[in-house]
């Protein structure tokens, strides 16, 4: 049984102009000790999907799923109170903006100690002990003194280390890191990522790494889930994904990398992710796809099998060639 099992997860937001489906039928699993990367352009529902798992969405969101299970427990039927016993203890999340994610009015020590107190009932001195241990583990020098520091006294990198320490506090089984390095200096990014991965290895935690960075994906992830406009459009182990992408979107992403797997940011491909009002009727990638046919415009693409990377496409690629496509060369797509 996987640690985290999501099947057919959808999230709808009530907005001023009606319903908006930010996550659309996403299925994922994460095992203990595994690193799953989620990639996709901004706005493809990566964060919202994971916030749904954590139960952190605002009231305007409606979450539906066939399965949403963590560690053998059904999150869909858990009472809010029961769920809060898991969140922050067995599953923890690290966010993109470390500077604004720490409460400016409380010391580092207080903020780390809080979950230790609430979930584990540690005494004050035990909390202090464990907090020092944690700050050491995340590579913060002089931890005793740092405990009484306020967030504004920390740099972005230091804040993210504190966030990681907070996430690790109760020895969670799953960590969700939502673009943990995007807001940091380039020089710090690698350090933080290395730290996160090494801690994950040591503790055999499951790690969901949401990222923009294909280089990071290549170096750290074991499996990759590619998302587009709220849908998961492909999922493969990292090696095969880079060598033989099956969905035209993945292929376009990889083709746009200046030097494969070395580019620091998600490469840009012509066009934009559809929003609430310009959602194509069938395949959501169709306006930007060089293989789009009439069928893609009218008929919702099927989910392919494991051999084709679960691609959500009428003509999944094998070694760059669309299977069953009337014109396998495709066309150029203008920006």
């Amino acid at each position, binding site marked *: 049984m996987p640690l985290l099992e999501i099947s057919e997860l959808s999230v709808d937001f009530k907005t001023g102009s009606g319903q908006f489906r930010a996550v659309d039928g996403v299925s994922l699993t994460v095992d203990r000790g595994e690193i799953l990367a989620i990639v996709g352009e901004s706005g493809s529902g990566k964060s919202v999907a994971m916030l749904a798992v954590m139960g*952190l969405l605002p009231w305007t969101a409606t979450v539906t799923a066939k399965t949403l299970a963590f560690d053998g427990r059904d999150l869909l039927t858990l009472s809010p109170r029961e769920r809060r016993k898991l*969140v922050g203890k067995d599953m923890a999340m690290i*966010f993109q903006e470390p500077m*604004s994610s720490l*409460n*400016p009015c409380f010391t580092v020590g207080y903020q780390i100690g809080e979950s230790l107190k609430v979930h584990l009932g540690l005494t004050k001195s035990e909390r202090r002990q464990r907090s020092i241990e944690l700050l050491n583990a995340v590579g913060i020098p002089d931890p005793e003194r740092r405990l009484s520091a*306020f967030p504004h006294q920390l740099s972005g990198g230091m804040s993210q280390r504190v966030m990681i320490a907070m996430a690790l506090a109760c020895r969670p089984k799953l960590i969700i890191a939502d673009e943990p390095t995007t807001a940091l200096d380039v020089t710090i990014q690698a350090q933080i990522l290395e730290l996160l991965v090494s801690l994950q290895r040591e503790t055999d935690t499951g790690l969901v790494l949401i990222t923009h960075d294909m280089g990071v994906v290549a170096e750290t992830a074991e499996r990759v889930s590619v998302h587009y406009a709220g849908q998961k459009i492909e999922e493969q182990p990292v090696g095969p994904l880079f060598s033989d992408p099956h969905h035209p979107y993945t292929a376009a992403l990889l083709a746009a990398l200046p030097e494969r797997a070395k580019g620091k940011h998600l490469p840009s491909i012509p066009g934009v992710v559809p929003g609430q009002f310009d959602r194509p009727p069938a395949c959501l990638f169709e306006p930007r796809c060089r293989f789009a046919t009439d069928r893609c415009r009218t008929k919702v693409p099927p989910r392919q099998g494991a051999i084709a990377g679960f691609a959500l496409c009428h003509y999944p690629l094998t070694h760059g060639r669309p299977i069953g496509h009337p014109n396998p060369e495709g066309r150029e797509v203008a920006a």
Partner: protein
Amino acid sequence: MISFIIRRVLLVIPTFVAIAFLTFVAIRLVPGDPVEARTGERGISPERLAYFRHELGLDQPVWKQFLDYLWQIAHGDFGTSISTQTPILTEFTTLFPATLELATCAMLFATILGIPAGVIAATRRGTFVDYTLMGAALTGFSMPIFWWGLLLILFFSVDLGLTPVSGRIDLLYYFEPVTGFMLIDSWLSGEEGAFASAVSHLILPTIVLGTIPLATIARMTRSAMLEILGEDYVRTARAKGLSPFRVVGIHALRNALIPVVTVIGLQVGALMAGAVLTEYIFSWPGIGSWLIESIQRRDYPVLQGGILLVSGIVILINIFVDLLYGVLNPRIRHAR
């Protein structure tokens, strides 16, 4: 921190001079003077009039009177009342506890009700509860003190006979003031019913004076909370699995208190103005009633000295609130 306090205290001096100047000029712009006020409409012989004016120094040029006054104040001498011949400081210290007691109770009333009301409205945003609370706050905010005071008196005192209409305690009770605060003194006196009587006298004035600050604090708390509930660190707090009470009441409220305390501080000046009216309505023997009487008598020294002393206290409270702001906001605390 120390240098901050010193700077703030030094800034008080020019403020003080400006206030002294404004009251000094304003009083003299009002028709009539202390001599006329005492001798009445029919008047006295021009010689006597000139004699009294000379006696009080009113025949001097105004700029000379002002400089003399400043010189006097600089030596800690606030002068004596023209009508009672009592030193102004003595009158002030006798009457001020009554005002302070009323103002403190009003502020406590406003804070204790206003902050929870704002928090509840923010967490129930857009619901019936929110609209009700904020509607009430808007009404309270727009309520003229005089009208509101009379309304409460009519209802609670006249119709229901629940509360007394004037004074600080029933005439039945007499004891020597120890602290000047009726609640404490009546308690200390040990006389049966004295404390209850003091409380019942305090209720309506407290509500009347506290209503505007209450409304202001509730509205400010709500808007500060609404902003803060959308902050990333509130999401972090929820991601720790903390209870809604901890998330809202500790993580969010702690941050919301920073702007709210500023607003409370700004209310203090307005509170003094409100106290004058409230005391007048309820015949509350405090600084407000004293100042209003001194206007009627054109008792220049009382009016000038009283306003200066009240301003001084308001300034002190504002400095204290600034310090509190620093204590609440770690960023400021370390910057100083």
